[in-house]
């Protein structure tokens, strides 16, 4: 029974990593690196702890003593084949080899024990305040190579030159020694950059205390990694945001909110999850609590599971590359395609709201805090922007230019002039367009009164809910788009447009087309589907932009026949036997 209890305890150790407190001495004799029999190490369960008088034995496990060349090898006395042995003063230095995937210098000494035999090899997380991400590492194919290289796969890269450029995102190496970080000769980063194997006062032999409860904000990571925007007062992952409940925890964890320096399941960028976007929206079964409704940070996870969504959690191809050429060539979508986790903030969220929780409010088309620091593509559909200043530029990364047709979409209106390149649909040269890219041309009479004078430009997100939606095309409101329709309300369109103005001919001020809109939308055939029904807005109107027609008229050819005509005043369509009907042009 007792043995079983001990065995059970022993079972837990590899899984939970540091379940026993490590001695935190500043002299090596008081740390787990004291392998001599005087070492306290971790309290042994079965064997008694010795005390040895021979203190000099403490160093020999890593620093082998100098030995004069005695007899030499018996099988090759005359010729010395042993030139490989390096001189005493630098027994671990090997400056000749620069390939970053070979451990060099001091790192070799660490790895000679930390290979799973003498010491834990899969350097398991020693602190993971966000409980239990998957315990064992999952690997991706080593053939994928990213900018920083893949040293030791899932661990922070070592044995490579620390590359500094002014204005970049790494600290000047001249300033590092003052912070306690030592680079190896040649400005190589080795294990000894972050670890001091002799001194465990900061736990994990770190040179700077990185424990969130003791020294919040992961100062060890940010000593070298100066991510743009991380120090911004509105960078919520850094500051914790205004949430009194969640904020201090997020602020304390700093980089460790998303990253793990060793055995990171998400090998690329050392993320906490093998599915990159699951680092952001944690599946509840993983034990994480970020952006999944458990804490007060928005339930993004539910959005990603809706019927129509950007499939960040693995539906689409996950090969996002930070430095990809834009517009994107490979179909993929991840959280970081639209959000920069180091810079994103709460200012102006939600997009377009007049009175957001954190001011200032966002004004179309400008990005808000949540979209800060993301790359985009400008309105021509070809030029990269770093960062994007307008929201549509972020969408245009994938939805503009020739790559915009990523898949044959579900059933959708078959437009007379079909165009998937959104930069062309929204172009200000078009005869009519929703003012996402360009400013509104007309006087806004068809808008609700509160918007008539103020809404000159809109966001993509005024109509779309890009993270997930129950409505096709990721729309944020109900929108019927097939004929016949039993709908009598189009909440998506009438969110901004005045349904009374557009469809009530008895009103004092009404659109010249009000009678026609009313007859089409509300009492079209007098019947109900499937025999007859109303015609939805989309049977005549194309919401993005139409190059040649005013009023966004772009007939749905499924209903209007193969060659409908519209000249701004009259329509000739196949829907009606007796045509044309005249309407007056209206502003």
């Amino acid at each position, binding site marked *: 029974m007792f043995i079983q209890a001990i*065995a059970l305890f*022993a*079972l837990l150790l*590899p899984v939970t990593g540091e379940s026993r407190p490590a001695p935190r001495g500043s002299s090596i004799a008081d740390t787990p690196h004291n*392998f*001599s*029999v005087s070492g306290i190490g971790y309290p*042994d369960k*079965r*064997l008694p702890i*010795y005390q040895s008088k021979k203190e000099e*034995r403490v160093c*020999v496990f890593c620093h*082998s*003593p*100098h*030995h*004069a*060349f*005695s*007899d*030499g*090898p*018996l*099988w*090759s006395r*005359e*010729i010395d*084949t*042993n*030139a*490989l*042995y*390096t001189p*005493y003063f630098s*027994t*671990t230095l*090997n400056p000749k*080899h620069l*390939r970053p995937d*070979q*451990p060099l210098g001091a790192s*070799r*000494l660490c*790895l*000679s*024990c930390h*290979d*799973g*035999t*003498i010491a834990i*090899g*899969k350097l398991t997380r020693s602190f993971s305040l966000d409980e239990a991400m998957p315990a*064992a590492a*999952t*690997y991706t*194919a*080593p*053939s994928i190579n990213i900018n920083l290289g893949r040293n030791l*796969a899932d661990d922070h890269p070592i044995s490579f030159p620390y590359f500094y450029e002014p204005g970049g995102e790494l600290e000047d190496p001249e300033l590092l020694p003052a912070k306690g970080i030592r680079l190896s000769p040649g400005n190589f980063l080795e294990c000894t950059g972050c670890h001091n194997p002799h001194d465990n006062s900061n736990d994990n032999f770190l040179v700077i205390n990185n424990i969130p409860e003791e020294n919040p904000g992961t100062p060890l990571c940010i000593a070298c990694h100066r991510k743009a925007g991380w120090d911004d007062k509105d960078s919520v992952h850094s500051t914790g945001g205004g949430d009194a409940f969640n904020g201090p925890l997020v602020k304390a964890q700093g980089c460790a909110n998303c990253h793990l320096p060793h055995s990171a399941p998400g090998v690329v960028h050392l993320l906490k999850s093998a599915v990159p976007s699951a680092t952001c929206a944690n599946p509840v079964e993983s034990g994480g609590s970020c952006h999944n409704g458990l804490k007060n940070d928005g339930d993004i996870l539910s959005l990603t599971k809706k019927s129509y969504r950007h499939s960040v959690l693995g539906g689409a191809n996950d090969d996002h590359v930070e430095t990809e050429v834009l517009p994107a060539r490979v179909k993929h979508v991840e959280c970081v395609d639209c959000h920069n986790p180091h810079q994103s903030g709460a200012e102006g969220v939600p997009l377009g709201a007049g009175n957001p929780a954190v001011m200032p409010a966002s004004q179309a088309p400008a990005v808000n805090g949540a979209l800060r620091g993301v790359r985009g593509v400008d309105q021509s559909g070809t030029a990269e922007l770093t960062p994007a200043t307008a929201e549509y530029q972020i969408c245009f990364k994938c939805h503009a230019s020739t790559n915009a047709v990523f898949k044959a979409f579900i059933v959708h209106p078959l437009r007379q002039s079909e165009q998937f390149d959104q930069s062309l649909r929204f172009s200000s040269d078009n005869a009519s367009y929703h003012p996402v890219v360009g400013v509104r041309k007309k006087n806004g009479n068809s808008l609700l009164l509160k918007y008539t004078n103020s809404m000159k430009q809109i966001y993509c997100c005024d109509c779309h809910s890009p993270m997930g939606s129950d409505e096709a095309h990721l729309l944020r409101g109900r929108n019927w788009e097939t004929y016949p329709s039993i709908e009598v309300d189009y909440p998506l369109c009438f969110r901004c447009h005045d349904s009374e103005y557009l469809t009530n001919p008895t009103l004092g001020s009404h659109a010249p087309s009000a009678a026609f809109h009313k007859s089409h939308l509300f009492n079209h055939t007098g019947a109900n589907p499937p025999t007859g029904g109303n015609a939805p807005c989309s049977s005549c109107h194309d919401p993005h932009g139409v190059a040649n027609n005013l009023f966004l008229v772009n007939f749905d050819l499924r209903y209007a026949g193969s060659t409908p005509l519209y000249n701004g005043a009259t329509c000739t369509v196949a829907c009606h036997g007796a045509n044309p009907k005249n309407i007056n042009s209206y502003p």
Partner: protein
Amino acid sequence: MKTTLRIKLLYLTLFLLLLNACATTPSAKTSNRELLWPPLPLETRIQWVMELNDYQDVGIGKGFWQRVGEFVFGEEESRIRKPYGVYHDDHDRLFVVDVGASLIHVMDREKNEYYTIGDHKKNTLRTPIAVTEDEKENLYLTDAGTGVIYRYDLVKRELKQFGSFKLERPTGIAYNRVNKLLYVADTAVHQVVVFSLDGMERMRIGSRGEKPGQFNYPTDLFVNARGELLVTDALNARIQIFSSAGVLLRTVGTVGDAPGFFDKPKGVAVDSEGHIYVCESLFDTVQIFDEKGRFLLNFGTTGSEEGELRMPSGIFIDSNDYIYVADTYNKRVQVFKYLNHKSTKGIKAE
């Protein structure tokens, strides 16, 4: 490439593959340098044979349908990532324990087959370290991360836990044909644990300390032809040799930075004449001692070319004196041969 395009190309290349299917198997990487130790004009004792990064290097060809499958679905990742233990048995099977990929590569040259034990996506094995085999074609492998020893039936291709115990950190493992016992080094408790094949623990050898017969983080094991057990006593920088009953016979080596001394010894093996081979990982070399512990030779220098090593760990010598060295940070296994006194000619790489 879109899948539909792939299918179209498949028809085109099927014809070409048909022609290619009868091609000779790829030859192992050979060297045109003379890789002999000691270097000429001294009498050659050790010769380099080949390196293998992938099972195809041992001449196991991909079958026609496997190639078709890979063309359509993508290639399986079979490259060695970070090898530790190696073992070669009498049926010409080479086992390479790949800690980096959490699986065991099995290269069966008799049946011209390659397969793996352990699925790294399902995390069957956490930190596999070493492997050994008994007479009944059962493989025994250690998983240091979970403390479990597995038995893998090579005939039925089944992986099961061996016994119902968990060790602290089992690393080296060796089967003793003389007394039919399985020896496992439990590094974290500084002991060698001995099991019979029914899974019962029979004996423990050693305790923590630096005296003869005591261990300080023992790692690799090897059992020689006489049934004697060699243990790498890693942090005491020595190899200890015990009788099969656990009585200490002698120790070999001490700590130092000169030839014949150890800094971080790992794998240990014995050739047909009783010479002891030890992988010295920090010096990137394999050191050879005689039975009395006198230093004979070392081969291998730092580097990634043929005959060069980077932190070698596991080593195994089969009955034909082929030496398999797990060249860990070069992601490969290198094969050498000890040219014993009876054979004066070298061998060609196949």
